[in-house]
Structures are given as C-alpha cells and as structure tokens.
C-alpha cells in the first residue's frame, strides 16, 4: 500500500518551496507586470496547496477556502492590471 497522506503532504511541501522560488521573480521585477504574474502563479500554487491539505488532513471544508482563493486570485490579478494601465481596457 502506498502512503497517500504522506505523498500529498510531501507534494504540498514541494509546492511551497516552488512558491518561495517564484517569490524571487516577484521581488526582482523588473516591471510591475512581472510581479503581478509571479503573484498569480503564487496564488494558483496556494489553491493547489489548500486542496492537497484538504485531502491529506481529511478536512473537506478547506476546499471552500480554495474556491474563494481561486476567485480572489483572478480578481486581484485583473484589478492590478487595470489600475496600472492609464487607458484601461485590459480585457
């Protein structure tokens, strides 16, 4: 039998480490759009980590938080893109 719980938690740890790596791009830039893109990738990682934790710890209510995150991640990315462009119209 393969220890599924340990695997899921291990995958979550790997995802957090990858998020830390992507953080370099968010700090470095050089443009604002690079930073927003890095934050978008970070947000997707966050959603996946939450789903992994929900499966590993067997707390299905974490999936609700993951859904809210997914919504919010999209909203923040589009909002920052819109605010940084003077003429509007990013969609």
């Amino acid at each position, binding site marked *: 039998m393969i220890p599924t719980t340990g695997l899921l938690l291990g995958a979550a740890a790997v995802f957090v480490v990858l998020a830390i790596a*992507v953080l370099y791009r968010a700090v470095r830039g050089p*443009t604002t759009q*690079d930073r927003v*893109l890095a934050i978008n*990738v970070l947000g997707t990682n966050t*959603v996946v980590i939450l789903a992994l934790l929900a499966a590993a710890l067997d707390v299905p209510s974490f999936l609700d938080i993951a859904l809210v995150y*997914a919504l919010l991640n*999209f909203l923040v*990315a589009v909002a920052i*893109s819109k605010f940084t462009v003077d003429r509007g119209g990013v969609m």
Partner: protein
Amino acid sequence: MLVSVAIVVFLAGGVFFTFVSAVGVLRLPDVYTRAHTASQTDTLGAGLTLVAVALALGLETTTIKTFLLLIFIFITNPTAAHAIARAAYEEGIEPWEETDD
C-alpha cells in the same frame, strides 16, 4: 491499489509541470514569455494535482468542489495571464528579441 498508482502518477505530473512553470517564470527573458509559461504549464500542473486530490478524496459530494476548482482554474488562469500581457503591452514594454542579449 490502482487508485493509489493513479494518484502517484497525477501528483508526479502536477509537481513536474509546476516545477517547469516555476523555472520558466524565473529564467525566461521577458514578461510575455513568462506569461506564456505561467498560463500553460501552471494550468496543467494545477489541473493534474487537483485530479490527484479528487482521486484521493474518493467519491463524495465534496469532490464536486475539486472539479469546480479545476474548471475555474482552467478558465481564469489564462484569462488573468492575458490581462497581464495586455497591460504590459499597453504600458509599452517591448517584446524581447534575440539580438538584445
């Protein structure tokens, strides 16, 4: 047993594609190429991992939420990448060319 093997395969695929996406975001030369790798590999990585999570949770009503999440990420992630690339274009950021290093 088969389910466990499927979980391992999907998790490995998800971690691999997210790793590729992280490397792309770190190493590619400009914002457009980074948006490309972020929207494609990250969507695939998140999708495969969420399939693994759905398999691990088994047949329950909460698993529907995982599929909602999957569909949502498949729709919103490329849209957000498009918005970011469009904002970069409107800001006047020139695409990278082979000649400028």
